[in-house]
Structure formats: C-alpha cells, structure tokens
C-alpha cells in the first residue's frame, strides 16, 4: 500500500482529485435522495384520494430488477460458453430455493462474479478516500473474499431449506401413511399439500407437477433426491421400485420405508444427544485463535510486524492457516464419522 497524501499538489490523477470527485458524487446522491423524499411526501397527501397503480414497485425493487436484468443480459451473451455451463450445473439446485429471480445455474455464477467485482469497487473507493492504493495481491484477496461471502450466503439458504425438510420428514411420512390407508397416492399428496407449509410444501408441489406430467412415483422421488440431496428420498424410491415386484403394494412400500427411516432417525438423535457436548467444545475452541490474535493486536499494534516483513514470518503465517484448516477438517471428520448410520 502506498500513501500519497500531498497537500501541495492538486493535479489531475493524484489522490486529492479522486477525493474531490467522490465528494461531489456524494453530494449529488444526497440531492437525489432529498428530491425523492420530497416527491414521496407530496404523494402521501394525494394517496387517500387516488387509485393505486397496477405496477406498485418500490424504488429499491426497481433497482434490484435492473441488476437482475443486467445479469440475465450477461447470461444471454455468454450462453454458449462451455465453462459457464459446466460449472453452472452445480448451481441448478439453487433455482427455486435461493432466489426467485434466477432460473438457471449459470446466472447464479455470474451474479457471484458481479457481486465480487462490486465488493472490490466499494473497498477500492474506501481505501482511496483515505489515500491508499491497493496492490494486485490485495485486489485478488478482496475478490476472493467477495466470492466466498456470496457463495456462503447462497449455500446457507439452501442448507436451511434442506434442514427444514429433514426435520419435518418424520411428520409428513406419518401423515402420508395415514392418508394412504384410505386414499390413492394422488389424493393423499393433495391433502398433504394443504396440511404442510414452507419447504416441504414447495417440494411436494414439485413432486405433484412431475406426477401429473406423466412420470412414475419412483422417478418423482429420484428427482426430489437430485434436487435436495437427502438420502431418505432415494431409500423411498428404491422401495417403491422393489416392493411391487416382490409381492406387495404401494402401502407396504411406504410402511417399510417409514420403519427404516424411523430407526435411522432415532439412532441419529441418540448419537447426537450423547456427543453434542464434544462438538460444541471443539467448535467453541475454533474461535479462540482469532480472539487471541485480535487481543494481541489490540494491546500492541506492532506485535505481528515481524511476521509480514520476513520470509520466515510469512512461512509461519502459511503454516498457521494450514493447521487451522486441518483442525476444521478434523472436526468435520469426527462429526461425519459418527452420524453415518
């Protein structure tokens, strides 16, 4: 980073020029917002005596839709690229779950790249205001952090959706079995959709669309598994295929799958209750290196100056990062190894 604050110079291309430019931009934004507020205040006076328009779009939604249109335009331009389509397939799972605007996986990829570039822009301007230029190394770091942030956000929304279905799986299987004793599968699906809400309802609606299009019940469950990656759906699909050929009917297949999934969920819950405190202990300890690092910096700003200036210091930073990653992978290994039932 280079500090180029110089009070005497005032030429084009130096830092004070950029700072003035940004100042004028800020003033312009304040004027625009003030004018918008005035217009809203005037509209409030007439609102009770007028009819609401058909397209009642707020200002932020308008700009959000513009952003979405820009990304779809980019996706249309790059629709023939092999790389985008190859890595966009991994994001096809997010389509109806994470964001209602994007209908393809490649659009999610492009939105992540654009988000990271905007992230870089904001941070670059923030550094410019204080008089610092950024290196290539720091620019790459900032882009990486932007990508990681938005990827984590998308993944977290999807995993919350999956966890909802996992929690409600046992309940909706009992209700489905109860309906199947008297009704057919189509009727029981419709009754279930009226009873449930949230993620399970959305998933069952998609299953209903598949069945009414003409697919078999087994294929509907397999498509559910491909969308959500929950193993229970695959178990049910295997039973639906095997049981009628062995000598039973569809109710027998659902009862068998219900019994196996019940046992599995009971065992997982038992394991979780017995081993929960160890996981919490490990996850709590994973925050301590960061806390210690920040405390040291708080009390003495130059404590870690040797690490950045020498080669051995950078090696030690590298080793610390690797050991930290090994620790987190070890936690994951312990948790995964015990719940695999």
């Amino acid at each position, binding site marked *: 980073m280079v500090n180029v604050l110089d009070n005497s110079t005032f030429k084009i291309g130096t830092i004070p020029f950029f700072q003035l430019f940004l100042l004028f931009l800020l003033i312009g934004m304040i004027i625009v917002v003030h004018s918008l507020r005035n217009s809203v205040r005037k509209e409030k006076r007439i609102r009770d005596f007028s009819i609401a328009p058909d397209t009642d779009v707020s200002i932020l939604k308008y700009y959000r839709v513009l952003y979405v249109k820009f990304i779809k335009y980019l996706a249309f331009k790059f629709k023939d690229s092999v790389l985008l389509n190859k890595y966009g397939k991994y994001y096809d799972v997010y389509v109806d779950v994470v964001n209602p605007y994007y209908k393809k996986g490649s659009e999610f990829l492009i939105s992540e790249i654009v988000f990271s570039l905007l992230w870089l822009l904001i941070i670059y301007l923030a550094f410019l205001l204080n008089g610092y230029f950024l290196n290539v190394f720091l620019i790459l770091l900032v882009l990486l952090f932007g990508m990681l942030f938005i990827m984590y956000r998308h993944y977290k929304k999807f995993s919350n959706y999956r966890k909802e279905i996992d929690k409600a799986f046992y309940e909706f299987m009992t209700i489905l079995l109860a309906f199947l004793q008297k009704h057919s599968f189509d009727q029981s699906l419709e009754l279930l959709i009226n009873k449930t809400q949230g993620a399970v309802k959305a998933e069952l609606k998609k299953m209903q669309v598949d069945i009414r299009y003409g697919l078999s019940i087994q294929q509907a469950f397999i498509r559910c598994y491909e969308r959500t990656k929950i193993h229970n759906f695959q178990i049910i699909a295997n039973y639906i295929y*095997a049981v009628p*050929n*062995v000598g*039973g009917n569809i109710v027998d297949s659902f009862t068998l799958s219900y019994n*196996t999934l019940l046992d599995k969920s009971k*065992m997982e819950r038992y394991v979780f209750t*017995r081993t929960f405190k*160890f996981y919490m202990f490990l996850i709590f300890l994973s925050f301590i290196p960061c806390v210690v690092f920040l405390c040291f910096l708080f009390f003495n700003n130059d404590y870690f100056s*040797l690490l950045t200036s020498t080669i051995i210091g950078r090696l030690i930073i590298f080793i610390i990062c690797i050991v930290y990653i090994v620790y987190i992978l070890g936690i994951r290994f*312990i948790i995964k190894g015990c719940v695999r039932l």
Partner: protein
Amino acid sequence: MTKLKRKIDRLGYYAPLSYVKFTRIRFLTTLFLFIYLLFIIEKYYFYVPLITILYYNLFRVILVDWPLNFYVSRYERDSLQFFELVSLAVSKGMNIEMSLESTAKYFNCDLSYAYIAALIEVKFGKSLVEAVNDMEVPSQIVKEALVSLMNKDMHTNKRMESVDKVVLKLKENMHREMHKRIKLVPIQTLLLLLIVFVPLMLLIVYAKDIVMLFN
C-alpha cells in the same frame, strides 16, 4: 494370502489401488522419503526413521482400513433393507429361494449382485448351499445370516421365524456399532486437541520468538 491382500479383496471394486500397485508405490515412496529427509534434516537424524515408519503405516490405514470400515458399515445397512424385503415377500407366501431371487433382481445392492453371481453358479451345477457358502462378502455377520437361512426349515412354515431372526441380528449389530462410535468421539477429540490445537496456539503466541530464533 496376507492380511493386506484379504482386505483389498474384501473392498473389491471400491479399492483405490490393487495389491501389487499398493506395495510397489508404498515401497518406492518410503525409500524416496527416507533419502530426501536425510538430505533436508541436518541436525536431528533420529526422527527420520520414525517418520518413515509412520508414513509406511499411515499409507495402509488411510487407503485400506478407513475405506473398508465405511464400506462394511454401508454394506450392513443396505443388507438390512434387503432382508426386510425378503421378510415381506415371505409374509406374502413365497418361499425363501424365490424371495431371495426376486429381491436380488429388483433391489440394487452389493449383496444382491453377489447373490445373482451365486445363482449363475447354481445354473452350472452347484447347489444353492454351496454357492452361498462360497460367496465373497466383506462383512462376516451378513454371510452368517445368509447361511443361517439355508437350513432344514427352508421350505416349512417356520421360514418366517428364521428370516425375522436374521433381521433382529442385523439391527442389534447396528446398535452395537452406534455405541462403538459414541465411545470413539472423546478419544478423537482429545487426539485432535493435542496434535492440532495445542501447536496452533503455541505457534500464534510464540511466532515472534520463532522468527527471532531463525534470524
């Protein structure tokens, strides 16, 4: 046949390396590691043979033992579902031979593939009991369960009880494995903390001193 070859045969299709490749790669890599470490480490020669022995054993553990344990647990879980289908077929009136054949045809599982291979041997002249005894199954419990079905009560009205016994045995086995894994967790946490967390904290706290040592 050595122990290692038996383990790799049990893995079958899911083995990362064959026996011959495994032994050759292990031998060559330990040799090169030994020589390379001798060149690098200038003061503490005592640790080089220890590291090579560790690597020699870790090579086997990571590539054969752990995959085998995961595979056997998955195999037993799938075979439980297989035998539940068999019990359903038997409750609808089929005998054990036909129920095993139909479940093996329509339920995709490694046990079913092995059973179909045994049925092909029956076509060429073997009896069913011989073919089942000669089947290559990675877990001992599943093989004992299958063999116990081939008894004198196969064609009588008591076949339902024998199938229920098999299902109970496998469920008890899964409970036992669950308890084993619960017992492993505190040991694994302790090892993780000692080997990974404590050096991490020491590195962060004494980073300055280490840098000054080398300079």
